[in-house]
């Protein structure tokens, strides 16, 4: 029983990290119908910013993540406003190509700037854990999990209770109607993309505190975000959290009770099964899933 509880707690914590990576990706896809293939590059760039802050001036990653978020918000805003906006009315494949190209440029840029050396943020508490009965809970993973929960609830509050958030949701529902209501869609899109990049930056900081990273890992986080977003479903701010937690649990249980080699295969099998019975994802809304502008 202890082993099951240990594995389950680890799975939930890992799931929280997955949710943190995916929440920004899901936001952009749900609101703007853009599958952002440079999302993973934003995550890694956020990790590097936090790593530089810690290396040069000793800033703790839980403070450095706000700097990462701010820098990436600006970068995301500019990229969307002056690049992606040029083709946002075009077929979805064009946005895929553009974001793929941006991804390549960012990864190569990071390779040149930071080299391919493996990095990690070291803290005095980085490997600490505490015991809950016979279960060990790693401290940094727990903090990342709590951050994912807090960010999800803040995002929900933002889109439901603030004027800006409601504008974002309205633009996501019907861009034309939103424009007619006086909402500046171009600015709203850029704001959404900026928020998504900022969230990616925060996720990157957490990842840097837990494991090693280098520019080549960007693709892995984009894929992870995509899978979790699909699993959770679009149009619901809790989708990334639910999808992330489920994916974390499935991977943990698969790793424990089957051969470790089958972890990814089992995770994708679960994704397929969920989509067969719930094509819109676990908590997604049909409207968003059906809205494919070709």
């Amino acid at each position, binding site marked *: 029983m202890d*082993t099951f509880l*240990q*594995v389950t707690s*680890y799975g939930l914590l*890992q799931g929280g990290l997955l949710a943190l990576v995916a929440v920004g990706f899901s936001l952009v896809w749900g609101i703007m119908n853009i599958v952002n293939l440079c999302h993973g590059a934003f995550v890694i760039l956020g990790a590097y910013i936090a790593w530089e802050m810690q290396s040069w001036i000793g800033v703790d990653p839980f403070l450095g993540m706000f700097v990462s978020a701010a820098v990436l918000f600006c970068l995301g805003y500019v990229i969307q406003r002056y690049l992606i906006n040029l083709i946002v009315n075009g077929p979805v494949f064009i946005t895929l190509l553009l974001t793929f190209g941006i991804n390549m440029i960012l990864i*190569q840029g990071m*390779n040149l700037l930071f*080299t*391919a*050396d*493996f*990095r*990690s943020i*070291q803290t005095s508490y*980085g*490997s600490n*854990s505490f*015991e809950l009965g016979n279960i*060990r809970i*790693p401290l940094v*993973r727990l903090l990342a999990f709590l951050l994912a929960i807090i960010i999800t609830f803040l995002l929900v509050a933002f889109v439901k209770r603030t004027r800006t958030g409601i504008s974002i949701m309205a633009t996501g529902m019907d861009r034309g109607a939103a424009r007619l209501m006086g909402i500046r869609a171009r600015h709203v899109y850029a704001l959404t993309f900026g928020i998504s990049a900022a969230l990616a930056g925060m996720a990157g900081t957490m990842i840097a505190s*837990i*494991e*090693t990273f*280098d*520019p*080549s890992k960007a693709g892995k986080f984009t894929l992870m975000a995509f899978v979790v977003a699909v699993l959770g479903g679009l149009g619901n701010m809790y989708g990334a959290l639910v999808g992330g937690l489920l994916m974390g649990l499935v*991977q*943990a249980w*698969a*790793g*424990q009770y089957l*051969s*470790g*080699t089958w*972890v*990814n295969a089992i995770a994708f099998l679960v994704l397929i099964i969920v989509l067969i019975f719930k094509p819109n994802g676990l908590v997604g809304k049909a409207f968003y899933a059906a809205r494919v502008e070709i």
Partner: protein
Amino acid sequence: MRNTSKSITGLFAISSLLMFGVHAIPAANAADVLTISLGASVPLTGSIAKEGLLTKEGYQFCQEKVNLLSTSTIGGKQKKLDIVFQDDTSKPDIAAQNLSKFNDKGIKLILSSYGSANVNAQAAVVELNKQTMVDSGGADNAIFNKGYTRTFNVMSPATEYASSMVKAIAEFAKPRPVTIAFLSADDGFSKTVTAGGIAAAKALGFTVIGPEYFPNAASDVSAALNKIKAAKPDVIIGSVHFVEGVALIKQSKELGITPRGFAETVAPPILDFATTLGPLAENVLGSAQWTSTAKGQDKYFGTAKNYAAEFKARFGHEATYHNAEASAACLAMVFAIEKAKSIDPDKVRAALVNLDTLSFFGKIKFDSTGQNTFKPMSVIQIQKGKILTVWPRRDAEAKFLWPYVK
């Protein structure tokens, strides 16, 4: 004023004569130089870019040394090494394609990529194109069990990676551990390493736990650790690469798994390992293809210590075994060319088959499958942040610390 203008005119005239003379001189030497092109497709970007860049440095260092020091000729011509690099982006299919591109350009002598997956793909193409390749990055025994005759590996085979650490533990660890748990990434190289380690552990009387596998490049190995936690192994041996190696140590601490010692392949000899883990890396054992205490010397690099010192002066960082094995592969190719007195790939291949020499890297000699089974691996231990050789005894520069307290 007139004197100044005369001086300037004079200087100009002298400079022009000198420049003409400088350009005139090499025209005679160019005909006496044989440029030997070696093709090297290495991962300069992608998931193994770090190791790929170290490999490139090793090849470059060899090129510079050979071009500086070589006195032997081929067909009366001074030889000049020219390594042509291509980026294979860490992908096996690109690594193989690049060799075909080299073949199209007439480059028949090849220095391998890094990584068993890449080299495995390359070996098949080399065989098809009748090129000749010296391998510095693919140690998996499986590459050499396919009947290939044109690929030669300067490194110790993959089966030695974990077994060397088991032998070191058996020889030096007091009190002697009873149980050894094997955790492994699920790629071909790591599985071969694990099989070799398990065979050595059983032969030496240890009780083996596992092996437990996790996906290659996994940053979460907690499932495998949870599986062996209850058994409380005395030693955990990880057949890993850098990412999994770091995760293994970190997550063991998180999960409260405290064996008497950790031993890992590939990761500990990489300088970033100790930097990334800090105090957690202390006393972790690792296996290395080469250290600066290796025995042997050659006419280009001298001893291992010479190599280490000159490499650091040239590239600004300590030489890793990735650098050294790349230089050794290039060196083997050069020795074979000198022995064959030819750059014909078949003659060079024949010379490699019969090569038996010492070098800064140790013994370079190939068995019937093309593997260098005559060179032992070294075992290192991270002590106070430094990577020190602790086994075999004759090469040791520090005492083997065991058991160690975290």
